[in-house]
């Protein structure tokens, strides 16, 4: 499932990585809904890609099928993907993901 959502976020005072982490936190990233690998062999349930323009364009991908790692060791070099892609047991709905992202929405000037 791919969800693309536009949102006005001011991340001018933080790095893009920190902005991405804020989005992950809002989305409920954690062991049970892992959207960012902390080790190369993590099991990931999806990913977040962000265009940090104005507005931000946030693409959340939630894996709907399991995929085993593709990594192989060749001449002492690890080649391929070591992470496992897995469908989340309690995958949020599209609306839930949008609602979670909307908590980051900037207050509009009146």
């Amino acid at each position, binding site marked *: 499932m791919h969800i693309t959502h536009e949102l006005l976020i001011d991340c001018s005072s933080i*790095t*893009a*990585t920190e*902005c*991405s*982490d804020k989005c*992950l936190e809002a989305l409920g990233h954690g062991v049970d809904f892992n*959207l*960012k*690998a*902390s*080790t*190369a062999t*993590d099991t*990931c349930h999806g*990913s*977040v*890609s*962000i*265009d*940090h*323009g*104005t507005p931000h*364009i946030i*693409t959340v*991908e939630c894996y709907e099928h399991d*995929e085993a790692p*593709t990594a192989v060791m060749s001449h002492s070099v690890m*080649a*391929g*993907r*070591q*992470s496992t*892609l897995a469908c989340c047991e309690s995958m949020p709905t599209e609306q839930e993901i949008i609602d979670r992202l909307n908590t980051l929405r900037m207050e509009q000037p009146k």
Partner: protein
Amino acid sequence: MAVIIDGSASATFATPLPVTEGGTGSSVAAAFGRVVRTAGNITTTSTSLVDVTGATVTITTGAFPVAYGVAKSFQHGSLAGNIYFNIDIDGVKQIGSLGIYTNASTAGYTQNGSFTGISVALTAAAHTIKEMWSVNTGTGTIIANSVNSHLFYAQEIR
């Protein structure tokens, strides 16, 4: 006449095309596409290849190869994190199943992520050419501002 300086590798030299088919002296223009991003960094946490936002061109070519390239700077948010870049032409990865990779010597350190390549001769048709990327851990960032732009291009070679 073609000159091979290093004969250790194999090389294939196609017969020069006649002028009517876009060879030397032809008036048939080579197709190209170019995307420059000057604002709005891009990040991903994906451990499988995903599209680089905006880095997609569709060009209609003759039965010729396409040269492609990317000029850009990038960062990885984690020490020793890997970041992978690839080019996809009509669903076919051009640089292996994962692609070129760089290991971050320092978290958040800006590095050169530029590369070029060339496809085999494509069919005479419209083709979609795009840059893709992934990380093995953490968050990858492609820098895009007026100081460090992101440039992606593809050009038919006639």
